[in-house]
């Protein structure tokens, strides 16, 4: 299960990061993007989300164990 998840994530990540940002008159966060530090933020949020989802999976498993016991 974990293997599928990791490969799916890798494919998604490479597909998305290949999309380029365009430039126009509107003030966008181009500097943050050009320095590449936006990836730090994305990495942090990804870890938080992954941890929460993993936690949800573990709670799910605990409930299943209880259900089997009853």
């Amino acid at each position, binding site marked *: 299960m974990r293997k599928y998840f990791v490969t799916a994530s890798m494919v998604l990540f490479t597909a998305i990061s290949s999309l380029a940002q365009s430039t126009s008159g509107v003030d966008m966060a181009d500097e943050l993007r050009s320095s590449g530090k936006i990836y730090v933020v*994305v990495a942090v*949020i990804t870890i938080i989300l992954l941890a929460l989802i993993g936690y949800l999976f573990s709670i799910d498993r605990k409930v299943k164990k209880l259900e089997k016991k009853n």
Partner: protein
Amino acid sequence: MKENWWKILASVLVIYSLWAGMLGAVPELPILHETIRNLYFHVPMWFTMVILYLISVIYSIKYLSSGNENHDLLAVECVNTGVVFGFLGLVTGMIWGNYTWGSPWPNDPKMNSAAISTLMYLAYLVLRNSLEEEQKRARISAVYNIFAFPVMIVLLFILPRLTDSLHPGNGGNPGFSSYDLDSRMRMVFYPACFGWILIGVWITTIQYRLRKLQNKQLN
């Protein structure tokens, strides 16, 4: 594993929406700037809430016709999770509004409606807790739920359209469809909504199963 595929799908979709939402290209618009990306995170909270309330009202109707207490239980747990997503929607909207509309609560009709509908569902939970007898509680709260749902739909999706609202798609404002003419955003927005809805349903089922176990132990 096999029955868990939709939980994995939910996780993948949400993570995808985070990556594509943060790194993907978005239309460059005045005032909104980068905050347009909030569309992928703020709006799915509301969609999830509405879907959970919809499931809740379906099970309330089912309860009234079947008298099965599990239907009532599922209806409550849907509202419990829905209220959490509603609060997330309110708070994220306040942060977004603070930076684009200049105030966290500019008395926008849609905001006020959202607050009222959240209070309405909180009242549902309070109503349940105030009734001691189980069958009476289930029946009365099911009827309340059936009335609350259409009112919530009117408050969130009809009334704001009849007046001026800052929200896109309301009161002569263009809908978000006009922001993504090249449909780049749709590719992120729809998966994000679907993923978050699945996460909401997932949390609800866990709550429901736990509550069922608790009830079993009490009896």
